[in-house]
């Protein structure tokens, strides 16, 4: 870095350069040490800037509990990057522990509290030897289940480690460890814990909020003031770092960018991705500093001048940086945030309309107004000279532009523009919808549904109808249009068979008199769920939780996609759900026939098979085929 400063035209470092260097160390470099609590302090004192401070929803509760003298132990669980060490250290300090002791290399530290108790801190369970861990777990057990009131442990651990250690210990002691199951259930949110064991699961924080907090902590950091007096962004010069930071703050389109980013984070979370704070910091750092031509793909102030002279400011667009497009693919995919975002396919996914706009918009009279408004208005990252040139070259240029990879240049521009559109298209733009730029076309509807349920508002009829249609198509394998009822169908034999024409039972698409389908919010997972009840007997219902990807699956199937072509995982999940419903139907039937027996009508009489048939308009109905039993 020193040498690159030397090469720079201005002999004096730009005013914000030490802050940028500090921020840069949070980015997805191969060795982003700052993201480890252990290194932050040193980096801070070198940079002489204020730290990036984030509040933690758990911190206060944790400190209160420890200080209150409540008996029992504390477990701080989380994934790598959630801030386990940070929390553990903060608790240590708040209880009067010395920084010096903390920084010493040993993994177990003890602290005598003012109330006479002794706290044993384990800053990372995975660092302990078997003997150490046995001793710590023994203390944990005694302080939670036993009589140990003078000592307690504070253990920072990832989820797998503690469960594994407890299982292993249990096996060696020839018993089932009494704490293992409760802790496991607590991790999975399906059980409460002993009152003498406090669990702080850092991976369970709301992501959208964490993102907003990280954005404001970084983008509103006082050091940005220095940029105001920086020559690199004055007199018509555009500093991509400052530009990105301003756009992140809402200089263009207000909160649209951060809202959409929040949607991505939220949708990822509901799809089961966990994005630790460390990743969110890396993401925001990369959004601001990413540039494929910079050293380690992250800009520092000293490189901005060179980038400006080369005319490649636009390559640092934040819209690309969100997805780690500035990074080598492998490095990007090492981080769960970029991996999660890659599932949206933004840049590859598109609609005919928006691609038409991006390819022909500049010349086509019908499109030019929209082009001007949606692309042309942005001179920095939108209709830049290089983009227009590439477009012209592609449309009019020689043959070479279209064959032998000659179009690659334009296609990469196109991908970048699609990413940009995702973040900039207005909410109600009639012909271009931003979710159409993703693999989750229905994610907007999904988030709307989740919000409606959360606020106890009515579910949109269009959404319900589409879900029911998708459900019916998976259940039967037939292209049904019905949206008012749900067919629980079988083929007679295995549930797995693709086509099921035999209707076991049917129910209404909305809950009536305690039966039928209701769309509810699953309190455990925060997600909408389809709750279908087939009969009044207890245990006659089954629930299907909707993640964004499952929702997408049902919607796509409803709109004509083949179930097997979208996601095997979703299909399997739904077939399992179908099997459950069939089992409920089977049990209800056996209850009913048990009644019939008493009336002596089961053996004699008739058997009715309800075949599902389809009218010309796609509407399914059941046609009973009655068979007399003689």
């Amino acid at each position: 870095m020193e040498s690159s400063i030397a090469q720079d035209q201005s002999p004096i470092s730009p005013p914000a350069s030490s802050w940028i260097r500090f921020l840069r160390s949070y980015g997805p470099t191969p060795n982003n040490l700052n993201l480890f609590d252990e290194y932050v302090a040193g980096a801070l004192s070198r940079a002489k800037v204020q730290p990036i401070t984030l509040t933690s929803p758990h911190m206060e509760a944790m400190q209160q509990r420890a200080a209150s003298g409540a008996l029992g132990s504390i477990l701080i669980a989380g994934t790598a990057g959630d801030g386990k060490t940070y929390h553990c250290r903060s608790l240590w300090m708040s209880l009067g522990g010395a920084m010096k002791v903390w920084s010493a290399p040993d993994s177990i530290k003890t602290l005598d509290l003012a109330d006479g108790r002794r706290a044993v801190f384990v800053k990372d369970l995975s660092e302990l030897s078997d003997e150490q861990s046995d001793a710590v777990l023994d203390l944990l057990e005694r302080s939670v289940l036993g009589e140990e009131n003078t000592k307690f442990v504070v253990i920072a651990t990832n989820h797998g480690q503690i469960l594994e250690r407890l299982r292993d210990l249990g096996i060696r002691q020839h018993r089932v460890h009494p704490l293992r199951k409760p802790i496991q259930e607590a991790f999975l949110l399906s059980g409460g814990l002993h009152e003498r064991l406090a669990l702080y699961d850092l991976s369970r924080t709301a992501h959208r909020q964490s993102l907003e907090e990280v954005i404001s902590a970084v983008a509103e950091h006082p050091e940005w003031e220095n940029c105001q007096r920086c020559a690199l962004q004055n007199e018509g010069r555009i500093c991509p770092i400052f530009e990105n930071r301003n756009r992140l703050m809402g200089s263009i389109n207000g909160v649209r960018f951060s809202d959409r980013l929040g949607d991505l984070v939220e949708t990822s979370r509901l799809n089961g991705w966990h994005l630790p704070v460390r990743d969110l910091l890396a993401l925001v750092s990369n959004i601001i500093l990413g540039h494929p031509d910079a050293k380690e793909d992250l800009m520092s102030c000293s490189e901005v001048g060179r980038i400006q002279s080369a005319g490649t400011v636009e390559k640092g667009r934040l819209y690309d940086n969100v997805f780690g497009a500035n990074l080598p693919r492998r490095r990007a995919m090492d981080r769960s945030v970029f991996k999660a975002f890659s599932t949206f396919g933004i840049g590859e996914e598109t609609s005919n309309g928006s691609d038409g706009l991006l390819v022909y918009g500049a010349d086509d009279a019908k499109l030019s107004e929209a082009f001007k408004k949606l692309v042309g208005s942005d001179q920095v990252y939108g209709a830049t000279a290089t983009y227009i040139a590439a477009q012209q070259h592609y449309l009019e240029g020689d043959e070479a532009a279209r064959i032998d990879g000659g179009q690659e240049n334009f296609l990469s521009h196109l991908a970048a523009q699609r990413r940009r559109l995702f973040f900039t298209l207005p909410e109600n733009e009639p012909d271009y919808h931003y979710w159409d730029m993703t693999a989750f076309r229905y994610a907007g509807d999904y988030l709307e549904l989740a919000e409606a349920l959360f606020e106890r508002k009515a579910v949109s009829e269009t959404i319900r109808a589409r879900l029911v249609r998708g459900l019916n198509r998976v259940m039967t394998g037939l292209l049904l249009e019905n949206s008012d009822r749900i067919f629980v169908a079988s083929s007679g034999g295995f549930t797995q068979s693709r086509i099921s024409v035999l209707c076991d039972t049917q129910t209404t698409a909305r809950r009536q008199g305690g039966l039928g389908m209701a769309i509810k919010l699953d309190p455990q997972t925060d997600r909408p769920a389809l709750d279908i009840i087939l009969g009044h007997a207890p245990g006659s219902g089954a629930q299907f939780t909707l993640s964004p990807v499952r929702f997408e699956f049902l919607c796509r199937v409803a709109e004509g996609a083949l179930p097997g072509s979208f996601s095997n995982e979703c299909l399997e999940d739904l077939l399992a759900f179908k099997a459950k419903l069939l089992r409920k139907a089977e049990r209800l039937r056996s209850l009913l026939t048990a009644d019939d027996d008493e009336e002596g009508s089961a053996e004699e009489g008739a058997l009715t098979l309800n075949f599902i048939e389809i009218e010309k308009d796609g509407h399914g109905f059941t046609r009973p085929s009655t068979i007399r039993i003689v």
Partner: protein
Amino acid sequence: MPLNIEKVDFTVDEHIWGHRLYDEQLPHLTVLEFLSVLGANRANPLANDRTTDVRYMPQQQIRLRGLLFNNPYVETVRDRGDPDEDKWRDWMELFKKDATGRDDLDMEYLRKSFLTFDDFAKALELLRSSSFEARSNKRWSSKFVFPFGPDALYEDLRIDSGGVSNDRRFFARTGELLYLMLSRASNGRELGKKLVERLFDASVPMNRLVKVLQGEPQHAEATKIIGQRYLPYETHPRFDRMCDDWLAILSRDIPVYDALEHLITSAGLNLLLYFLECAKAHSGDDEPVEMVCEIISRERTKIRSLSGKSYQAHQAVSERAVVSFIESIKLEPEWTVALESSDPEGECLKLMRERFQWPPAGRDDDDDYERLRGDELVRNLVEKAKSRHDQHFGKIHSMWSKSIGLSSRRLARGNRYAPNDRLLKTLVITVVDERMQFDEFLHELRRRYGIVIGDAEGAHLVKQNLVDQEALSENRSNLEARLLGLGLVRRLSDSCSFVENPFASEGKN
């Protein structure tokens, strides 16, 4: 230990595995034969009484199977625009042409049940769509309707101009052995009760439909007897394992017809392990059976050659068992006594005959066994036994492991263990009660079935430098990803995932 089995040239494999396991009787055929036995013993299912042979008179259901699998005319007749009356008449004429003459010439009774010919055709279509191998080119008398209930069961038959006979082509007693095995398991009676309760409910709609087509059941003419001596082990850990696996599957919250699919796969896997375990035990190998499984992923894995070797080793183990079982007679004290007697040839021959039911007594054979020395007799039998073994017993490992989805040639030249999705699903549904930590699941697969997938289970292989640890842990991750794709794994964080049984157990919700 005389075995005395009629119509068998000699008894060797029969001592090791029983009479008998048969390669072409794939697991679903085994379970169907088993259900036939169970159906006939519904009053006292899977009773373990070593003093009484199991008897059953299987159903034959000639009309039902004829309607389903020897009746190509229904569709053509249905599609004609003729009046209903004509359709029935035309179809009956056509059907009669191919009928067997065993109470299947007069099908008028169908008209009393089905209001229209189309209804009748539709019902047949439905039953065919769920039957086993409906579209295969097997003879029609070896095709089977789904075992919806007691009326849907019947035995495999050869039906031709000569009449009806058991040629034991696909029901070769493996299902009978399965019945003995499960009846000897500790929890056999409980399983018997459950199976009868769930699979022999005559009132379920599909069984009633089958009954309408069949009318009164048609039985075989003679009672079949399953000699208790046909299964050489009074108890065996594998019998208990299989029985408990079946009980677990039946306790899940799934329709019984889906459970059946898993029962079949589970039977196949446990029978295969029984086959390998007995073979190993008889060839003097005390190590537990171990199958290194490659989890196929997009990228080539280093486990492939190891799983191929593991497969190949098992291919050879049964023949080795046959050879060493025969040769072990030479180590018996009686053999030494015989050799030292005044008539060593005669005494050895006597011993051979007692043990192996061979050489045949009083037959005018080309071979004159009477004059052979003891070791020549043994060598002679080894040759004969090897060549008989090769025909069927020796193919069991490859046929069954392929049929349950345990072995595969996908992306490779040779066979190796590479479980498919269906098998993995059965394993999860069997092993996991509700949820289980992923590592524990791997451990359980190893403990129960000798399946080696991850680095913890294959640690000894790493130690022997057969494979590097990284390759095994990659294999482990591939499994996690596969199960995730099947909706069977829930990831808590990058360090921790759980295998979840989507059908946990009855009574939830």
